[in-house]
């Protein structure tokens, strides 16, 4: 049996307003899987994602990442070992694409030469040319920006990559292309991906396993085909039909 690279057990989380965002959630993610999280807005999917790299703290329950309890992790080290990509790439407008991709390596104190080497090899994989590398994010198309965001998340060779609606703002064609690329990359690199999305088709195409969430609870967590064939309840059936 494959090892659980992320193990969430009985986690509850609520904000000051009272009602829990996450209600006794458990989720085990095996190494090398591609897990997509989907649900209506406000269901707690982004909060769940942000628990994994310590951007949010749970009120109760236990979270293990890379075999180590979250409480034992130095948060800065934890985040540097996890790739992180957000909507529109979250690229820094004052840095070039090259500097953006090298950001994690740079803040971790790597030598300029080794950063350069890594960025160039990523640029080759993502087919960025030199002119694009020296441009600022605003000078590139949305799709290109997003690919730079993915490249940035990959830069430090993480075992896990978290993505929060990375392709949210893109047009359909660009989106499908990037999804295809991402899928190939996952198969080639064997990295564990956890991705929050609001696009049902994206969740089912990319995910080796899909988490269906509603009102702070996981309704179903299974392979896409199993969910389609055997939805656990009426709500899941309804939701996945859209």
């Amino acid at each position, binding site marked *: 049996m494959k090892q659980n690279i992320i193990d969430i057990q009985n986690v509850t989380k609520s904000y000051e307003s009272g009602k829990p965002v996450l209600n006794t959630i458990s989720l085990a993610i095996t190494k090398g899987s591609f897990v997509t999280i989907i649900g209506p807005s406000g269901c707690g999917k982004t909060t769940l994602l*942000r628990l994994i*790299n310590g*951007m949010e703290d749970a009120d109760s329950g236990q979270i293990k990442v890379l075999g180590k309890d979250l409480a034992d992790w130095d948060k*800065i*080290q*934890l*985040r*540097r*070992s996890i790739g*992180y990509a*957000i*909507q529109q790439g*979250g690229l*820094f*407008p*004052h840095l*070039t694409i*090259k*500097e953006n991709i090298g*950001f*994690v390596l*740079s*803040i*971790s104190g790597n030598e*300029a030469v080794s950063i350069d080497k890594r960025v160039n090899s990523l640029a080759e994989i993502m087919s960025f040319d030199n002119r694009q590398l*020296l441009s600022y994010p605003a000078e590139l198309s949305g799709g290109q920006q997003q690919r730079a965001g993915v490249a*940035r998340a990959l830069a430090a060779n993480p075992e896990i990559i*978290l993505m929060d609606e990375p392709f949210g703002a893109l047009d359909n064609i660009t989106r499908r292309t990037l999804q295809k690329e991402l899928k190939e990359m996952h198969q080639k690199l064997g990295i564990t991906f956890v991705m929050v999305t609001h696009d049902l088709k994206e969740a089912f195409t990319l995910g080796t396993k899909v988490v269906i969430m509603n009102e702070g609870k996981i309704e179903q967590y299974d392979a896409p085909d199993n969910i389609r064939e055997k939805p656990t309840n009426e709500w899941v059936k309804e939701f996945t039909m859209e």
Partner: protein
Amino acid sequence: MSILSEIIKTVQERHEYLYELLVQHILLSLAAIVIITAIGLVTGIGILYNPKLRGPILGTVNFLYTIPSIAMFGLFIPLIGIGYVNALVVLIIYGLLPVIRNTYTGLNVVDPLLLDAAKGMGATPWQVFSRVRWPLAFPTIVSGFRTMVVMTIALAGLASFIGAGGLGQAIYRGINTNNSALILVGSISVALLALLADLAIGKIEKSLKKKSVTKGKSHVWLKYSGLFVIAAIALFMLFTKTGKSTGKEIVVATKPTAEQYILGEIISQLVENNTDIQVIRKFGIGGGTSNIHPAMLKGEIDIYPEYTGTAWLFVLKEPQIINPDSLYSALTKAYAEQFNLNWICRLGFNNTFTLALPETVAQENSIHTFSELAQKSNSFIFGAEFDFFEREDGFAGLNRIYPFNFKNKVELDINLKFQALENNTVEVINAFSTDSRIKQMNLRVLKDDKLFFPAYQAGIVIRNETLQEFPELNGILKGLEGLIDDSTMLQLNYEVEIEKKSPDEVAQTLLKSHRLIK
């Protein structure tokens, strides 16, 4: 002579003086800019992280910013006195708003999504600030900095008002000595300085941007280093300046009139040429006696020329003494006892209120005194400014001593009085006895034969402590006793105000002709 050639002549003749003012101006501005930048950045960052302090601090600096600058300079005189420090404090208070506001706003409006992204990638709080928040806020901060620099350089022009020097002194001196070329040279210099500074900051900002593209991550430090270089230069200049001032020196101040500038130069040059004491000139202090006298008591000024009437009536607030000699001896006694200030000597002239009429008219009617004028007054029209007619020590009191019966009395604006005389709207006016226009228009000053107007004899006031420290000053300055009579002072004022000679040149010629300096 065209105004342009007058400007060129002014610059040629006074380039040393102007250079000195320029250096003072730059030093004052730079010191203010460095301190403002330091305080402004720290405060701006501080209120970003302390929301409780934000409202009160922004409110306070906003409020201070709305106080008119002249009022602000005046406001601080009782608190910190005149001169460099006061000017610096005022400049700092004004400059803080744009720096604090732009620093805070620039840092605050950075997209939280980007800060979150940086944190999520494992940036430490300092890295989030230095790699993301600060560089994104930087253009806004620089624009606040630019506003502040231009404003500070312009505002430093007002510093001369309180004796802190700078190019404003040329403007102020130009106004007080009726020299429009000097006013223009001063104003243009301030404007050019501000413009150049603005351009330079723009250039530096641009080149930093370019470097950041090619050099990658080091650009943050390049941006900081620009500020550090400016700070280093300013601090270096400050230290060299204070280092120089450890020797023997005295401060000579004057009120803002041409006559006072000349007297100030006479005193300063006499001291400089006969001792090894360095003279710091704080000429043209705004507000005159009301600001100079307190500064004398505080020890910020050592010597200044004063008039007996002003000292007796305005400073001591004593009732009038008619006899000028009795006045002087009462005055010197009171000054020594109450203020520990010494009157060294009287210079010889009396700059008091008088009546004047064209020399030709005076000759035709053989009028020399107020009494003679009173007898023949029914054939003349008298002109004076509005408040002269109002004041008890003006026309009303005068008319009680001398039974004037003018054909007509005309109220005029003080600046139009001489003009009205020239085109015969009026025939007799009131005037100050050493006003250069008396000579320019060839007027006769009449004798106040029944001594109605108080004496305003010019003299030199010095601090007792200064005299004890430099006893040689007593003998040297006594050399000026009785040296300048009414007509001599009138002539000197005429040379400066009408012939546009500089006060130092006029003073030098006088002292040389009496062999008081080589």
